């Protein structure tokens, strides 16, 4: 997005002519304006982040004395099956939260934007709705859907697939995909709306020209539609991948990580280790690893998104 392009421009040094869009002459008073932001940032983001990194090098139960253990908490994150498992689950969730919604959204939007559809405003509002509902409410609604006597099993029995009916969230194989489907439900509308908006901006003439050149729908999609929505694609992927990595409320309310540890995710393990198991060091090491993963994903996605936009 715009941010990276702005990084590229060097800091204006004294003597260089002022760039457009920068009305201000050098002003000392600026420091007063940014002071509250810097203060809040330093106290409630920077300092806790540094403390988290520091905590992650100790073994501490939250009450007594702490012991320096070096990097062994990080070693635990990568070797303990339950902790490593949480990251594996997060990867599975990325498929449900990001890959499926983005693919589905792209295909649907491409089909639909071949002509102007009426009432798109209405559909946009409805399809976007899952994004704004508190996750706790979403979790409660979907728990009800997955109940042994819930609507999902009712439908399966109604169409004669009785053998498929099961207590979804209590099933060792199906619990994680069941949680994932909720992510698909939340994200698909967002992706579809984003891509429809992006595709609405593509000039019609491009398609006409392509058709005159004998391009089929597939060719059209890959050489016109897809490159034109690169920016939206990056935004959609960033939002959905981060949402998948940070899943907490959904798991907390729907399964508490169970059955067994089949649906634990990194942020649930952070909470679990810090406040239920009394392993503050492990929890903070996990949090640092999670942060690193979020950073890396964001950077990679936006790099890819920006390529070709220049």
């Amino acid at each position, binding site marked *: 997005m715009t941010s990276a392009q702005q990084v590229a421009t060097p800091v204006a040094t004294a003597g260089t002519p002022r760039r457009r869009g920068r009305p201000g002459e050098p002003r000392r008073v600026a420091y007063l304006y940014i002071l509250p932001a810097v203060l809040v940032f330093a106290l409630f983001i920077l300092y806790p982040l540094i403390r988290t990194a520091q905590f992650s090098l100790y073994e501490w139960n939250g009450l007594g004395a702490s012991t320096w253990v070096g990097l062994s908490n990080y070693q635990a994150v990568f070797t303990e099956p339950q902790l490593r498992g949480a990251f594996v689950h997060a990867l599975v969730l990325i498929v449900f939260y990001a890959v499926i919604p983005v693919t589905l959204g792209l295909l649907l939007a491409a089909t639909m934007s071949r002509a102007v559809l009426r009432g798109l405003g209405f559909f946009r509002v409805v399809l976007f*709705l899952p994004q704004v509902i508190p996750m706790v409410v979403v979790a409660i609604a979907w728990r009800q*859907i997955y109940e042994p006597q819930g609507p999902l099993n009712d439908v399966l029995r109604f169409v004669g697939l009785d053998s498929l009916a099961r207590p979804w969230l209590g099933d060792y194989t199906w619990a994680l995909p069941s949680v994932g489907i909720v992510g698909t439900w939340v994200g698909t509308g967002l992706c579809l709306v984003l891509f429809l908006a992006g595709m609405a901006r593509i000039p019609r003439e491009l398609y006409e020209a392509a058709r005159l050149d004998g391009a089929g729908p597939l060719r059209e999609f890959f050489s016109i539609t897809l490159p034109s929505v690169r920016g939206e694609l990056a935004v959609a992927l960033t939002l959905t991948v981060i949402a998948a990595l940070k899943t907490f409320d959904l798991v907390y309310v729907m399964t508490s990580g169970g059955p067994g540890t089949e649906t634990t995710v990194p942020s649930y393990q952070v909470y679990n280790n810090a406040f239920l198991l009394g392993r503050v060091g492990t929890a903070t090491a996990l949090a640092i690893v999670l942060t690193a993963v979020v950073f890396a994903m964001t950077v990679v996605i936006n790099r890819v998104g920006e390529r070709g936009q220049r």
Partner: protein
Amino acid sequence: MISRGERLANYAILVLFAVIAIFPVLLILSTALSNDQIGGGGSFHFENFADAWDQGQFGSYMRTSVIVAILVVGLSTLISVLAGYAFGTMSFRGSEVIFYLILLGIMVPAEALVVALYFDLREIGLTNTLVAIVMPQVAQSTAFGTFWMRAYFRTSSREVVEAARLDGAGHWRTLWQVLVPMGRPAVTTMVVLVFMWTWNEFLIPLIMATSENLRTAPLGLAFFQGQYTSGTALLAAGATLVALPVVVVYLFLQRHFIRGMVEGAVK
């Protein structure tokens, strides 16, 4: 041009997805209006909402949420406008570095802050206070808000600022009497996004509010679910109450929501 058949198919797909999107919402609503007790008559049980409000203590949870939302939205908007103005219209030593440092705050997940923050705040006796629930959220929203407002102030035309200055307006007056009124749409978008994030936030209040009287609405709902497994109608009524404010705001200001998510959200 596309064929009639294709057009119909498109509408069918849109309707299908709309139905899927809205089904869980309708399910909760209909459960909230259903009858929990065996043998009760009538079809719509609006008293479930009153019962949830009293028995489920949703009145108290909603009050906490409203206070938290007002504080977070108010404080972070004010701080973001001030910082965005400086970053967007003034040049000063270190501005780029400080800005990108703050921007990193958008990406830091709450998980990486709350554990250490909890123990440090406990040390000075601040856990289980509004400060502990509000300030971390103010910080995260300010990171986004500063980014958002800087983008607006940069695009606000140089001529306007210079004209205001020629008229003798200082930087303070230029900000509040010229740029902020002109930037109402940008500010509104930021306010509705921050409101939604704050209202729906779960992890921070879960960790910071250890006593019941500081529970926010989503948190109260989660605990209510844990305690009363049988009262499905009351639980659904509570869920409806918790979702209502943000859904109502969304329906009125949906343009701002969608635009904000499309343009600025890296959160």
